[in-house]
């Protein structure tokens, strides 16, 4: 085994185990074994899997963005609907207020008119009563005056002519 020894010695003294060609077949064999295994791990498992993960992530991000966009649009639409409803309600309220005001006004007007009419009727009646009372009072005064005048004339010893007394009393009462 002199050759092996010499080669090993040469490898030693040359200082470059890299150039000890005796080890090359072994190195190349095991390298190829390792590369084949790595190829299986990388090409058959890792690349499809990582590619799938990345595609799924991109899909998820895209989907999430689309969903966010959609929700944003929905929120905007809801806000629009809310604003429109608010505006409608405001208009409706204004309408109701106006209608109610008008209704109250008519009722009020009617009540006022009725009350005025009643007051006028009451006033007219009162006036009539006052006139009656006044007329009654005048008649009573004239009668009292006649009677008093007749009694006075009799008491003074005269003979009282009813017509004269009448004329005199009415002249005085009028005066």
């Amino acid at each position: 085994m002199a050759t092996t020894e010499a080669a090993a010695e040469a490898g030693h003294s040359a200082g470059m185990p890299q150039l000890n060609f005796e080890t090359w077949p072994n190195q190349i064999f095991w390298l190829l074994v390792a590369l084949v295994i790595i190829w299986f791990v990388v090409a058959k498992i890792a690349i499809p899997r990582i590619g799938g993960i990345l595609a799924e992530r991109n899909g998820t991000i895209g989907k999430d963005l689309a969903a966010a966009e959609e929700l944003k649009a929905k929120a905007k639409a809801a806000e629009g609907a809310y604003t429109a409803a608010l505006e409608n309600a405001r208009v409706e309220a204004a309408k109701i207020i106006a209608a109610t005001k008008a209704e109250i006004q008519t009722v009020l007007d009617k009540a006022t008119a009725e009350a005025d009419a009643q007051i006028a009727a009451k006033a007219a009646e009162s006036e009539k009563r006052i006139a009656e009372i006044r007329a009654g009072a005048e008649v009573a005064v004239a009668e009292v005056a006649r009677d008093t005048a007749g009694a006075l004339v009799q008491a003074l010893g005269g003979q009282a002519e009813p017509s004269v007394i009448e004329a005199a009393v009415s002249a005085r009462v009028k005066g």
Partner: protein
Amino acid sequence: MNVAEAGGLLIDPMHQFQIVPLFAGAAGEHGGGHGPEIGLFTITNQTLWLGIAVVAIFLLFVLGTARRSVIPGRVQSIGELIYGFIHDMVEDVLGHEGAKFFPWLMVLFTFIVTSNLLGLLPKSFSPTSHIAVTAVLALGVFLTVTLVGLYKKGLGFLGMFWVSSAPLALRPILAVIELISYFVRPLSHSIRLGGNIMAGHAVIKVFAGFASIVGIPTVGIAMKAGVSGVSILAIAGIYGLELLVAVVQAYVFTILTCVYLRDAVGEAHH
């Protein structure tokens, strides 16, 4: 000057690259005691670290992504990062044509970067520091580029050696230069990676050898403190640099592979 015994200092930066059988008893029968022989199927320290790299890649890519989370965890993020990095590189350099090479480039990059980084663990072994390994990778790339180019473009593939934008008189000379540079590619491709990793490890080892000065009784205490202090600082600095080199060389090897592949599948750009 493999072993420099300067006043008792033992500096042997190349020893770490020695390939030795893991189970010396079995191999010893063949070696007859004078250094164990390494057969084709012998399990060596390199086999062990190739296996550890395979396990690491398995853990990263299979267990790390097992949950298939839409929101990734730490390990899954690393896997996705590598995937995205190589995917973008292939898209940028090769365009749509490169899709079918993507798995191979993933294999190249993950294998090289894992081996490089595992090699930085103390007491470990880096398969990518061996020319045999990087040469197989580079030759594989070279053969793939050549065969795919000839298959896709036929003789038109040889057009890349005929620089049509140059003056006619210069074209034969340029063709020779292009041809030489084409065949030098696998050499530079493999030595760039292997040499970088080997040099970094060797330099660390040299400084580690200097730091061992503290074990020599004849050296003064001030000398010991100074030399070993500087050595340890240097090791720390170079270690950081080597982390960078480990990743950058894996990147360089992969992107050069992409660039070479573009000759085969892309439109002519010479």
